[in-house]
């Protein structure tokens, strides 16, 4: 798969450090599942964590700390003692519609999702997550349709899963991620023959601009 738009380095580092909101972690992980290059880059970022751990000052452990752990190990039945080298089943099918981190949440097929019309030509599938202050949802936008223009209250990430769109930044197709900073304005237009399906995380509820959108916002709650 040829991917042209990748994760921002700051996002890679936050993912590696464990500092992403769950909604963004799902989008980043889904891109990583599709992108060899960013998976390599995350290893470099994780190696920073390894180096920091090596240089960490030592904290005092509780008395008998190892003895307690040792007892846990002896009593441990949940280990993979019997098949220590068994690899997990191959789970990554590059041809699969839905990358593994997303299929844990929405299932394996993009064709079986339930969509809700939000504005003509634009459908949404909301994904509920615990412990998040951000929104995670999927959008399906018809060919030739514009996403209503929206500014960003905060960071936003969009991962393309099917079809493609074009905006001021460039063309985004399957596997591409738009990892946008605050204050970036863009107005994607779907340029594929089929509807474009993407996964979106936003820091705050997206606010559509324009009179019609503004009027519709209370109704669509997007």
């Amino acid at each position, binding site marked *: 798969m040829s991917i042209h738009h990748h994760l921002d*380095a*700051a996002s890679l*580092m*936050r993912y*590696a*450090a*464990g*500092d992403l909101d*769950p909604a963004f*972690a799902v989008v*980043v*992980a*889904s891109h990583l*599942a599709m992108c*060899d290059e960013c*998976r*390599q880059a*995350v*290893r*470099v970022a*994780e*190696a*920073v*964590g*390894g*180096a*920091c*751990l*090596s240089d*960490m*000052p*030592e*904290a*005092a*452990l509780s008395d008998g*700390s*190892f003895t*307690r*752990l*040792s007892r*846990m*190990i002896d009593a*441990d039945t949940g*280990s*993979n003692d019997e098949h*220590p*080298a068994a*690899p*997990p089943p191959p*789970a*990554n099918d*590059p041809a699969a519609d839905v990358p*593994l*981190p997303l299929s*844990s949440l929405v299932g394996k097929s993009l064709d079986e999702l339930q969509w809700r019309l939000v504005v003509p030509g634009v459908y949404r599938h909301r994904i509920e*997550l*615990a*412990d998040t202050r951000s929104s995670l949802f999927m959008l399906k936008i018809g060919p030739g349709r514009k996403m209503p223009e929206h500014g960003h209250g905060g960071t936003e990430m969009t991962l393309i899963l099917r079809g493609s769109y074009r905006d001021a930044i460039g063309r985004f197709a399957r596997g591409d991620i738009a990892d946008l*900073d*605050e204050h970036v304005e863009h107005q994607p237009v779907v340029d594929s023959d089929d509807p474009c399906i993407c996964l979106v995380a936003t820091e705050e509820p997206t606010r559509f601009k324009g009179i019609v959108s503004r009027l519709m916002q209370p109704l669509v709650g997007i």
Partner: protein
Amino acid sequence: MLKVLRMEEPTEDPGQKTDQAQFEALISAVAVQRDKSAFETLFVRFGPRIKGMMLGSGASQDLAEDLMQEVMLTVWRKAALYAPERGTVSTWIFTIARNARIDRLRRQPVQPYVDVETVSIASDAPSAEAEMITGQRGELVREALQRLPKEQRDVIELAFNQYMPQSEIARKLDLPIGTVKSRTRLAYKKLKENLEDLR
């Protein structure tokens, strides 16, 4: 697994075993022979450092101790899944600690990380370049980190040593969040360059 064979290979500096070579041998002894004294050596080395990270991130003594034990128990259980070509032992243990913390301290689902790991095991062929950067010569990452300008290193160390969220780093250093982001970005770029130079 492959790593058992890899241990036989001469290291770059045959006179002096690197930390990484020693840790790899210990992990392998845990994985293959279920060697408890090898595990204790790893525990003595990493336990206090893992606890230090947990304390730094605001965990209480009890929670930090408990998380450290959980991380080391995972090291015992999953030793056979450690793959040197994907990173150093320190890096592997760091990711286990990060995941344990996400799971517990922040009550966030760690599933995305687990899924990426599964994908990675299923599809990544070890490449010489990746191994160079993250594997055998992992100590170079420490050196590259030391070479960063202080203002960049500070941001990185808060994020990784104390698991400090970006927004808190911004508050602590009294910087706009955009500046924290751009320093992180620059640090990553510089690290990669430094790693190239140190080869």
